């Protein structure tokens, strides 16, 4: 029976083989393998995507969030400033002036009111200051501007009433169709029912201009202006003082 050790190990063969072991891998092969081994640990192959992102993504997210919040805060701060002036003016309802508004359902904005009033005044000044001497002719306006708001018509009603009042205590306070029909007011014609009412301010200014002419002794000019006024506003009541102050046409001093 063979020795198990000998059958599994042969010293002579082993020694002989050990002496024959001379081959070695070439240096180029060594370099290539060592290089690959180094690169493998310098750049890991299996790196999760979130590790590649690292700290950059969270930092970017925080930066964007901060910028967004800053913009929102800034917009909120600016918005009240932008909205406030308009809102105050737009919704500001100053106490109604006596006699100004008769129609409570139309609260006119303050800015709008002032602008309209100034434009009317300007127009009246033009009429009275510049155009009256020239236009002893009928003014172009045969009727009030159609753009005038109902509030202005209402204003005429009241102011015409007030304008009439000083002239004659017996004159009715407000123009009304019934008064007109009844003819209760002598010598004074009330605005016809349905007729478009002129601006009280404009007519009053015109009449005031006529008074000035009378005071200045310019009878002829006052008469011509009155005639023009009557042509423009035939239904408008003319104060008695003006009529009596102006000598009837045709009767002129030499």
């Amino acid at each position: 029976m063979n020795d198990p050790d000998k059958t599994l190990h042969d010293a002579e063969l082993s020694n002989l083989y050990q002496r024959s072991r001379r081959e070695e891998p070439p240096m180029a092969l060594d370099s290539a393998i060592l290089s690959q081994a180094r690169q493998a640990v310098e750049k890991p192959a299996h790196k999760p995507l979130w590790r590649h992102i690292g700290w950059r993504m969270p930092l970017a997210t925080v930066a964007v969030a901060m910028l967004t919040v800053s913009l929102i805060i800034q917009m909120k701060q600016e918005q009240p400033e932008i909205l406030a002036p308009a809102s105050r003016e737009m919704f500001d309802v100053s106490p109604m002036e006596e006699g100004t508004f008769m129609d409570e359902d139309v609260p006119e904005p303050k800015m709008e009111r002032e602008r309209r009033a100034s434009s009317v005044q300007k127009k009246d000044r033009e009429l009275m200051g510049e155009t009256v001497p020239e236009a002893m002719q009928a003014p172009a306006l045969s009727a009030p501007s159609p753009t005038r708001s109902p509030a202005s018509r209402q204003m005429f009603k009241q102011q015409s009433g007030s304008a009439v009042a000083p002239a004659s205590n017996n004159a009715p306070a407000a123009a009304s169709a019934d008064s007109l029909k009844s003819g209760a007011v002598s010598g004074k014609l009330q605005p016809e029912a349905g007729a478009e009412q002129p601006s009280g301010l404009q007519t009053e200014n015109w009449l005031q201009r006529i008074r000035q002419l009378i005071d200045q002794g310019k009878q002829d000019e006052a008469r011509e202006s009155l005639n023009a006024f009557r042509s423009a506003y035939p239904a408008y009541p003319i104060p008695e003082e003006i009529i009596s102050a102006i000598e009837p046409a045709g009767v002129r001093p030499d």
Partner: protein
Amino acid sequence: MGRRDDSGDEELMLRYKAGSADAFSLLYGRHKAPLYRYMLRSCESKAVAEELYQDVWISVIQARSHYTASAKFSTWLYSIASNRLVDHYRKQGRWEEYLVDDSDEYCAVAASSEQPEAQADINQQMQRLLYCLEQLPPPQRQVFLLKEEAGLSLKAVAASIGIGVEAVKSRMRYALGKLRLCMGGEA
């Protein structure tokens, strides 16, 4: 012949796994020559041997993240090498050669054609041995080389190539018998 001491190999591999390229360099220096010769004697040409040799080390590099010191490093290394050889043989269509455990035909032919002289030069003996080794069936040659070249125990050889210890012993007996016969001695 004294067995190679691989006590520090596992630690070096773990250090390389942790990122130390120098640890791999030391490890490579220890095992590069035996592995190279193992591949050289197992393949039909030097070019093929070098290609497979590089493949083995690349596999070691890529598998570093999965390495655990549950087995000896040399056992693990030659396991990779043996599997690579099997793959090569399969591609070559020479897988059946690995299934032959014993074949007296090889050695018998060698023994009859070239009878070594009793007092042959040592170099000639070495050459003869390498020639006889080349004539062994691949499975028997593999066992002989893993033992003599890699310094593995029979148990480690069995673990490396995935067969039982008894199968390793059987192949070893046949290998040694044929080598002796081929060298001009008795089986």
